[in-house]
């Protein structure tokens, strides 16, 4: 079926060629080393800037440097959820298998980023606020985002039929994406109602230019890492799901 799709769509627009697992698999294989190289380049540059160039923070001392991991991880955790929901929605509307595989591949990365963000946040919070955890709106919504990721992963894992798992996961991801802003604002208002803003994260002190550069470089590093790992995961998922097809059996890495 994928081949038929392939032929008809390639006449319209060449890009759709890669929406088939059999054509995307080698393409992803070629792209992965590039994204890993970019990850390393941005990572080394970002770590160098953040450890050796960025000045010591006047208030927080050296401890603030965890921001260079914490903030990119938080950004990625939110952004990946959007991308995941977009892929899932595409898969639901156009019934393309690869989109659903992309969504499935992205979920653990996003969950990992959300966890990393919470973990580094706790490490940062302990010396700065004297608490591992405060019920701040951002922390709480990040925690709920982690729950949403885990729900998506759990739902996909417990449905045996792959097509049904894709569709059910897609509906959950889309419902989640509508709910994320609602949850964020409700937690924010809950927070302002129940306790005074003891910790204000929004009024961050003006950042030195080099600190910002360090953060942006690290964010780029996280982007490239997520793409590289996402492609690797999607290749593994393709192999698993298409194991019965001839083209997979012809692959060098699969041949005994």
């Amino acid at each position, binding site marked *: 079926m994928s081949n038929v799709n392939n032929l008809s769509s390639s006449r319209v627009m060449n890009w759709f060629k890669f929406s088939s697992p059999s054509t995307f698999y080698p393409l992803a294989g070629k792209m992965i080393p590039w994204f890993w190289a970019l990850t390393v380049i941005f990572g080394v540059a970002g770590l160098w800037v953040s450890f050796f160039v960025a000045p010591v923070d006047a208030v927080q001392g050296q401890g603030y440097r965890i921001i260079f991991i914490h903030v990119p991880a938080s950004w990625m955790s939110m952004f990946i959820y959007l991308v995941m929901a977009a892929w899932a929605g595409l898969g639901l509307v156009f019934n393309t298998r690869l989109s659903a595989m992309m969504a499935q591949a992205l979920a653990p990365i996003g969950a990992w980023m959300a966890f990393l963000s919470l973990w580094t946040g706790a490490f940062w919070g302990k010396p700065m606020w004297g608490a591992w955890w405060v019920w701040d709106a951002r922390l709480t919504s990040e925690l*709920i985002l982690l*729950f*949403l990721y*885990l*729900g998506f992963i*759990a*739902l996909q894992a*417990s*449905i045996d039929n792959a*097509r*049904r798992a894709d*569709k*059910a996961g897609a*509906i*959950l991801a889309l*419902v*989640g994406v509508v*709910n994320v802003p*609602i*949850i964020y604002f*409700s*937690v924010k*208002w*809950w927070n302002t*109602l*129940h306790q005074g803003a003891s910790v204000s994260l929004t009024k961050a002190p003006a950042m030195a230019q080099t600190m910002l550069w360090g953060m942006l470089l690290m964010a780029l590093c996280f982007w490239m890492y997520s793409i590289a790992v996402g492609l690797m995961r999607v290749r593994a998922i393709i192999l698993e799901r298409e194991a019965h097809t001839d083209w997979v059996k012809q692959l060098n890495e699969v041949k005994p």
Partner: protein
Amino acid sequence: MNAFITIVHRDLLLVMRRKSEVLTALFFFVIVTSLFPLGIGADTALLRKIAPGVIWVAALLSTLLGLQRMFAADYADGTLEQLVLSPNSFTALVFGKVVAHWLVCGLPLVLLAPVIGIQFDLDAQSLKVLMAALLLGTPVLSLLGSIGAALTLGVRGGSVLMSLLILPLYIPVLIFGAGAVYASSVGLDITGHFSLLGALFILALAFVPWVSANAVKIAIE
């Protein structure tokens, strides 16, 4: 419309034939809320403070207990397939099932809440606000829950999985529902909370039956 009423009537009839399932969920609500004073201590001021949260969390959990029943039996015996194939709008039929669930699992919570509230020494004004907030909030719980019930149809460990999927989505209702009661007990304005609960209700009413209907279709395919 006729089909909608028929579905509501049928589901209610089925519940009446087997009352124990519904009563279990209601007793669960009463028992869980009664456990909190035993665990925390009978300090009246403290109880009054935690009452809104405890009652709302218990309401969330006991709604979950009844959700599995919404589609599961009909899915197992093939009724659900017949409903999808029927000429009536399947969204309306799903909405009928949600309404039946609310009448059985949501409305009794609203009526029971004042009794629980008295256990927690809430004043009359707060009790009224609690009932009103539950009246507006429990339909949202039934609606959102129907998505989870539909997605986990016939899935291994479905009911546990469903709570994992649905509880995070319940958070806004919990916040504004419990917030309204808390605000009323400390003499703050409650209109904001009710506006937001109403907004959640309207949003859920507009979109959720359609989403659930599609989720059921995916499970049946």
